[in-house]
């Protein structure tokens, strides 16, 4: 049986059938409106589910810009299409590893999010790149050092280590364009990192 509002109310046996209200509700046009209201309610009841899934579990995100070239948007000079990536959001701020590609709120622009690669974990000593004022820096607790793969990137060398609380998700797959569909092999990058003791 198809659910309607009628399921949530007892039959209005207590209402006099001749009342103005009953006649109004009995009008076929008004009943059609009630049917539309029911479908609108069913549609709206799924919106919070989408919001919760996008906040806590997964989201498909569009990648703008070339800061992760050539991992994302490698055809940036030949094509206007932008890469879409699958972002896993459950427990994203924990179990971070060097080489992971993460999406986080920009420290300079609280309404914008950026994608970068985790290079240093708390306690690591990082050899910084030019814009940063000092040559080496130790990542403080609760922070990570992030850098973009490309040349045109504004990363931790500009704004310093970022708090893990800013991280909203880990990029796990490229989903668009289809010919590059596949898992982001972040652990291969981690092997290439240069360590010195």
């Amino acid at each position: 049986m198809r659910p309607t509002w009628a399921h949530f109310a007892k039959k209005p046996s207590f209402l006099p059938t001749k009342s103005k209200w009953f006649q109004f509700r009995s009008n076929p046009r008004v009943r059609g409106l009630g049917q539309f209201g029911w479908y609108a309610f069913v549609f709206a009841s799924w919106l919070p589910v989408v919001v919760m899934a996008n906040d806590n579990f997964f989201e498909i995100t569009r990648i703008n810009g070339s800061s992760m070239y050539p991992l994302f948007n490698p055809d940036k000079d030949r094509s206007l299409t932008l890469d879409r990536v699958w972002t896993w959001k459950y427990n994203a701020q924990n179990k971070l590893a060097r080489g992971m590609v993460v999406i986080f709120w920009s420290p300079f622009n609280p309404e914008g999010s950026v994608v970068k690669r985790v290079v240093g974990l708390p306690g690591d000593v990082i050899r910084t790149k030019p814009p940063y004022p000092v040559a080496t820096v130790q990542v403080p607790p609760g922070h990570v050092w992030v850098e973009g793969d490309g040349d045109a990137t504004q990363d931790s060398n500009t704004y310093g280590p970022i708090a893990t609380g800013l991280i909203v998700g880990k990029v796990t797959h490229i989903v668009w364009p289809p010919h590059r569909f596949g898992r982001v092999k972040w652990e291969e990058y981690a092997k290439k990192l240069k360590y010195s003791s």
Partner: protein
Amino acid sequence: MGHWASYFAGHPFRVFVHCGQTLALAHYIFNYQYSVGWGYGPSMLPTFLVDGDILIFDKHHRRGRDVQVGDCVSYHIPVSPDEDGVKRVIGMPGDYVLMNSPGATSDRMLQVPKGHCYLVGDNLPWSRDSRDFGPLPLALIKGKAIAKGQMVGWNPWKWFEPLPNGLTSDDSS
């Protein structure tokens, strides 16, 4: 038939789906509209008690939206993940703030960088705040405290009192 219970009785899948929808609605309300929290610790002492105060947060101010100097905000503590704190904003991007407590060894000042704010607890000697971990990215702000109170008495309308902006003009000098 026609009663709402008959829609659920004997339909475990319907019960499951509607429980999930209700959970998602709660997630939406507590993360995007309003939420309730329990503050503890001595760092905001004249304003909030050490323990027992219930705070109501307006989540429309998440990520520093429309936050002003003097507001109490809840934020993700950058140096200790999985923990939230409540402090007062004393500087927004571009403002000059004292890096240390007034009367401390150094009177150095700092301009709050863009996208950041400067947080300090009301109980200066007993607070861990921006004086320790530096300017806080606005994106770490979760909401603004708009009311505080305790569940004392029988009238729920008397439990909470609004929390006005704490910025006052200094006429002493």
